[in-house]
């Protein structure tokens, strides 16, 4: 805080804390904004899941109507993917990546803020659909022509979905560009690609996936928008349009998307396991190449979501083969992680519990993935609860678990405090047991023929028993998350006295204080190997010491206390423009939604126009505003 105040003073600004958060371009703060926004959304979207679970607890329940159920289901899926899993990942990109590569910030700090605000506004736009009584209801992949024709989805629900996703997509692409450039261009001296921490690698790969996958979604969403607003024929069978085109566009995006979600958590696992096992990641180059292989393959498997569409036996067989191939690099990762633990000295602190459970759960969700890839089996499993089981095992089991692990792991770097270990243990066990209780029986009802997206079912189907179990599990799971909140509240009341390196870490973020000063590194470190910090502490592979007591005391990269910014450090200036441009963009989307309604229709295009105007002048303002303090000003201060 002291540095921040100093920095502001130096820049000639005096701003309140609120203004500081609104205008921040500091990756650490943006990371925290991302983090809490997505955690709130996790609770909200989880709350929607609980509503669904009440409705499905027993046959013929009458809690949510069919339409409401579909809205709740669609918003649960859409928000969990786009407003929880993706931004929660982005939170840790921001919190950890610049620190791990020894950088003072990301390449484009204001663009980073723009990504956050677009995410916030885009997701709020989508959530607001509930307020207008028309939430999207065509499922998270909004299959055309149910989604693309006002005949089958009247009202603005799908417009909220379509345009909200466009805004979120822009946010993701901007973020991916930023992190791609940051990682390629801002590594500390000596950090060659093969010395980069595996997490950073996975973020890099993820950025590439986002950049190449999202445009396909953007195009598809535009087509749905044109069909809905201008009566085009993209998905209109009456003029020869083929709704299956949307499925291709969506899954060309959608399949890489699931790896966009899971690769960074895999990177997190690859950081946590070595740290708590006191061993380097086993076969790190293999793990990295496996990540790249998964990313590459993921572009050529999309039709495995479409096995029942009738593409023909040859395409089905080819896509099945390419899909199964993904199991091989994923297996490499799993086995390397197990081998990392093997022979280690494993300290099962909370992050480690979450990470090792995630490894096991990845296997659990992965093997059912291979079953879906077996086309004939998928004829039975597609769109059944077996699929729901598969992806919750991975999405909750790997992504959410690993990100919860990351929360415990990097909390010192966020707030300078360590979360309570005992509560962490309780949180882990409740979550782990409840998630299995919730999602495992879904395999049973799935094999017993229960289709997904059913708002109810009759007693004669015999699905009632397991559904009750699932519902009970879901409630326990939901309540377990409150333990985390309690833990955070409790911890935040304690002084921020976490050591710089609480876990005996291996990478650069542990060389600087917790929380790091505004400029991260007073002196940019020089990197001599993948486990850059570990090597400094305990020597490289050949001269390793055998006991932590023999640790070499490399001085923690402390800042020069009380003297403000270290000489020569330029910090980016806070800025309103990113938020203004995002607001303009969101206004354009909102105007488009209004255009589709009866009551606000005439206002629609004017609002779009105003939004475009704001975007244009916002960009101009952005352009003219100096990104950092003027050099002379800076100089004067430093020579003070």
């Amino acid at each position: 805080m002291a540095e921040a105040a100093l920095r502001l003073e130096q820049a000639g600004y005096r701003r309140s804390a609120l203004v500081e958060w609104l205008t921040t371009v500091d990756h650490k703060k943006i990371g925290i904004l991302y983090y809490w926004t997505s955690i709130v959304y996790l609770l909200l979207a989880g709350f929607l899941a609980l509503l669904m679970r009440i409705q499905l607890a027993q046959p013929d329940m009458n809690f949510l109507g069919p339409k409401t159920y579909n809205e709740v289901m669609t918003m649960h899926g859409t928000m969990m993917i786009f407003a929880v899993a993706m931004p929660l990942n982005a939170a840790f990109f921001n919190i950890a990546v610049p620190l791990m590569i020894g950088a003072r910030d990301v390449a484009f700090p204001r663009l980073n803020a723009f990504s956050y605000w677009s995410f916030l506004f885009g997701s709020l736009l989508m959530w607001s659909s509930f307020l207008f009584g028309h939430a999207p209801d065509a499922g998270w992949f909004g299959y055309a022509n149910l989604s693309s024709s006002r005949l089958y989805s009247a009202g603005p629900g799908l417009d909220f979905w379509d345009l909200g996703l466009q805004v979120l997509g822009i946010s993701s692409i901007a973020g991916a560009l930023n992190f791609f450039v940051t990682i390629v261009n801002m590594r500390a001296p000596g950090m060659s690609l093969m010395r980069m921490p595996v997490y950073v690698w996975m973020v890099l790969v993820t950025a590439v996936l986002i950049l190449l996958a999202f445009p396909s979604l953007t195009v598809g969403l535009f087509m749905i928008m044109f069909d809905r607003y201008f009566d085009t024929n993209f998905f209109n069978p009456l003029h020869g349009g083929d709704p299956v085109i949307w499925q291709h566009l969506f899954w060309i995006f959608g399949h890489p998307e699931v790896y966009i979600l899971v690769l960074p958590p895999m990177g997190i696992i690859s950081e946590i396991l070595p740290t708590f096992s006191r061993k380097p990641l086993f076969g790190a180059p293999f793990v990295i190449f496996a990540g790249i292989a998964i990313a590459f393959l993921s572009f050529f498997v999309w039709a495995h979501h479409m096995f029942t569409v009738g593409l023909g036996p040859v395409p089905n067989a080819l896509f099945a083969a390419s899909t199964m191939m993904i199991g091989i690099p994923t297996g490499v990762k799993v086995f390397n992680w197990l081998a990392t633990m093997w022979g280690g000295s494993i300290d099962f602190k909370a992050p480690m519990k979450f990470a090792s459970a995630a490894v096991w759960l990845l296997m659990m969700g992965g093997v059912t993935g291979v079953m879906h890839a077996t086309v004939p089996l998928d004829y039975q499993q597609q769109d059944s609860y077996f699929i729901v089981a598969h992806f919750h095992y991975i999405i909750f089991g790997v992504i959410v678990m690993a990100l919860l692990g990351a929360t415990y792991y990097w909390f010192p770097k966020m707030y300078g405090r360590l979360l309570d270990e005992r509560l962490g243990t309780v949180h882990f066990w409740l979550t782990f047991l409840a998630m299995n209780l919730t999602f495992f029986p879904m395999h049973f009802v799935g094999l017993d023929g229960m289709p997904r997206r059913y708002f109810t079912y009759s007693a004669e189907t015999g699905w009632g028993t397991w559904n009750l179990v699932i519902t009970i599990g879901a409630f326990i799971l939901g309540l377990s998350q409150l333990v985390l909140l309690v833990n955070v509240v409790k911890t935040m009341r304690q002084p921020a006295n976490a050591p710089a390196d609480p876990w005996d870490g291996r990478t650069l973020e542990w060389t600087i204080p917790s929380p790091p000063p505004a400029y991260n590194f007073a002196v940019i470190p020089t990197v001599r190997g993948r486990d850059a910090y570990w090597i400094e502490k305990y020597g490289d592979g050949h001269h390793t010491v055998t006991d932590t007591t023999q640790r070499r005391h490399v001085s923690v990269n402390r800042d020069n206390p009380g003297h403000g910014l270290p000489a020569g450090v330029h910090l980016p200036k806070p800025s309103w423009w990113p938020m203004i441009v995002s607001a303009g963009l969101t206004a354009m989307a909102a105007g488009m939604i209004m255009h589709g309604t009866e009551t606000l229709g005439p206002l629609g295009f004017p609002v779009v126009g105003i939004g475009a105007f704001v975007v244009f002048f916002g960009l101009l303002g952005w352009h003219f505003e100096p990104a950092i303090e003027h050099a002379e000003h800076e100089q004067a201060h430093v020579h003070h």
Partner: protein
Amino acid sequence: MHGPAPAHAQPGPATWIRVLVLLTIATVLEVLTYAFESTLGALTAPILILFAIAKFVLVVAYYMHLKFDNRILTGIFAWGMLIAISIFAAMAALYHIYGQPLLTP
């Protein structure tokens, strides 16, 4: 090979004009190919594609400086193109080789 070459080590207007001439010739030939479609028959499509690729490469390599710039940039762009083209090819196969006929409205 080229190393991190700064933007300055580039050829000047003479090269730009030469490239422009080549681009113009290619365009003229393209349109001619189109005009003689009936004579060329099945050759038309490959010829057209060839000319388009030639023009594409000229602009990218010279006007966009990829030839003189850091190889990383070529790699990035080539991967984007590669993925886009492979998906395009897969889609073409799905729709034109394996696709069953759609119903006529």
